């Protein structure tokens, strides 16, 4: 999603978010991501200075203390990779094998074989359209944030095509964006 992103070119407006709206976002985060709930007061305190950066292509970034912590695409609110690194357990995980790392780092969506091979790992149960942390064989920090395109069962059985759509990956333009 951020393969060719440039904040300078796409930013259309920047404004602080009202505390009533912050409350709404907190609720949304907790219901979409049960893993965020225990950390919500650290991630987004009730009285935090949340800033909203509206960009083109229906993308909105949210920042606290000059750090981008979430991005929104249409209705989908996603934690950034930076936030995921600070709070590693907020998202369900999948793992790609070592061979897939360099493709992910160049922005490719993740194909099923990269998620089902011996070096990879998939949870027993995982639904479609779930935002996941993409881990990598032999690495401790997350490689990317993505969204599943089929269930874990289908990935194992079909083992073809895109299993996880990439939302953000290490080194992409959003990763490098500083406020």
């Amino acid at each position, binding site marked *: 999603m951020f393969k060719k992103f440039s904040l300078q070119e796409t930013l259309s407006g920047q404004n602080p978010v009202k505390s009533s709206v912050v409350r709404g976002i907190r609720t949304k985060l907790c219901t979409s991501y049960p893993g965020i709930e*225990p*950390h919500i*007061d*650290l991630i987004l305190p009730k009285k935090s200075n949340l800033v909203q950066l509206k960009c083109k292509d229906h993308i909105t970034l949210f920042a606290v203390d000059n750090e981008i912590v979430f991005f929104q695409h249409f209705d989908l609110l996603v934690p950034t990779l930076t936030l995921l*690194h*600070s*709070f*590693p357990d907020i998202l369900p995980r999948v793992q790609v*094998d*070592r*061979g897939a*790392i*360099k493709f992910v*780092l160049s922005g490719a969506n993740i194909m099923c074989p990269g998620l089902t*091979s*011996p*070096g990879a790992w998939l949870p027993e149960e995982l639904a479609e359209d779930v935002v996941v942390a993409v881990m990598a*064989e*032999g*690495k*401790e*920090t997350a*490689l990317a944030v993505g969204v599943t395109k089929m269930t874990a069962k289908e990935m194992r059985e079909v083992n073809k095509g895109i299993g996880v759509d990439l939302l953000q990956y*290490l*080194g992409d333009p959003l*990763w*490098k964006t*500083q406020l």
Partner: protein
Amino acid sequence: MEQTEPAKKTVLYCAICTLPPEYCEFSASKKKCEQWLKETHPAEYERLYSDQAVTEKLAMTTLSEDKVAKEAAKMEKAVSKEEARMARELEKKMASKVLIKRVERNKRKCVTSVFGLDVFGVDLKKTAKAFANHFACGGSVSKNPQGLDEIVVQGDFSEEIMELIHKLHPEIPKENIAIVEDEKKSKKKPAA
């Protein structure tokens, strides 16, 4: 019952390629990354680059030996390419100048424009704001007639701005910053 608050984890990032150091091996600047880690975080370096760690990584790779060699050659090429690119960029930087110019708007008022900072990787918007704060005046980024970005500060601050740039960005060589007089007077003053 009160739960103990889970703490935020601090992650180390590579100062060269910005990734966590365990991913540096995939970066085109990996030699520099390795050097940086060795100098600044020896323990982490030991963990990632020790003989044992390297052997484990090799065991993970499912590619045939032939392919491994090919991959290595490819990587080598990418690395030397990246290094050449960096060298070229550095050369370009060293050759380019930051120009500070006083431009008269009318008899009493003038602005100071600063051109060329972006070549040195300086964030123009942030710097314009810093200038504005420092001199308590208006500062902005605007396009010059050539369509290139420059910082414009309200008032005559040529000397002060030069000092401020030295202070904020010591990485820019002093001899690359010059104060120029407005064309109308067509007199060039050497850098102080």
